[in-house]
């Protein structure tokens, strides 16, 4: 690990990766809100983060699974708009939090580089 790769940066990278995977799945669920037979798909965010932290050098592919326990419509589609809009807002905020932390970490490194002058 070089000095540029602080543990926080590495973790934030995984966090942002996971947030974009989730965003892609939420968008996919929303896009298919009227597709007959489509099943809601998502990742277990916390579990995936734990797996990624357990193997920081070779992060595993996230495990995408179908979500059970949602109300299914007669056409076999079980996308819940409430669930998806809530996750959409949540993922966006998570992502922005991650970016903010990343920026502060870079600022910290910059402070070290410039010997605290700026």
């Amino acid at each position: 690990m070089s000095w540029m790769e602080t543990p926080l940066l590495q973790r934030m990278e995984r966090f942002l990766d996971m947030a974009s995977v989730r965003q892609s799945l939420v968008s996919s669920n929303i896009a298919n809100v009227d597709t007959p037979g489509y099943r809601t798909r998502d990742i277990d965010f916390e579990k995936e983060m734990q797996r990624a932290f357990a193997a920081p050098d070779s992060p595993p592919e996230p495990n995408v699974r179908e979500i059970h326990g949602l109300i299914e419509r007669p056409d076999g589609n079980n996308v819940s708009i409430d669930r998806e809009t809530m996750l959409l807002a949540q993922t966006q905020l998570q992502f922005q939090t991650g970016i903010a932390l990343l920026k502060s970490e870079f600022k910290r490194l910059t402070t070290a580089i410039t010997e605290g002058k700026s």
Partner: protein
Amino acid sequence: MNLFGILDVSGSALDAERQRAEIVTSNLANAETTHTAQGGPYQRQLVVFGTRKPKLSLFGQVFNGSHKQNAQGVRVERIVVDPTPPLQRFEPSHPDADKQGYVSYPVINPIEEMANLMEAARAYQLNVAAIQATKGMITASLDILR
């Protein structure tokens, strides 16, 4: 999948919902059409949605080659014609009337069509919200450079 690929997923839904709205408005516009190019009255049409693998540009494919594609877009798989037999109305003076004086009219329920149109509009709005969220994430990423 990168963030730009997510825009493609939501974009495919915008396209599909717009096509659905087009078909519904065509049904409403032709609620009284007794004469079509194929002969006979206008027949009500319905869209059937199906999933679609998101399209990736060549540039995107290079960078996503190793990645598994999880997200699925949507597309209009086919347009089906409502097989309900046409409505017969007794109008002997109508140019499209048959020998008995009956005219075939399309079976279109405006309430059903309006409900369908509203559903398409709501789904469109929902996907626009998703695009805005993704756009916010892309803008936030660009913010790191500042």
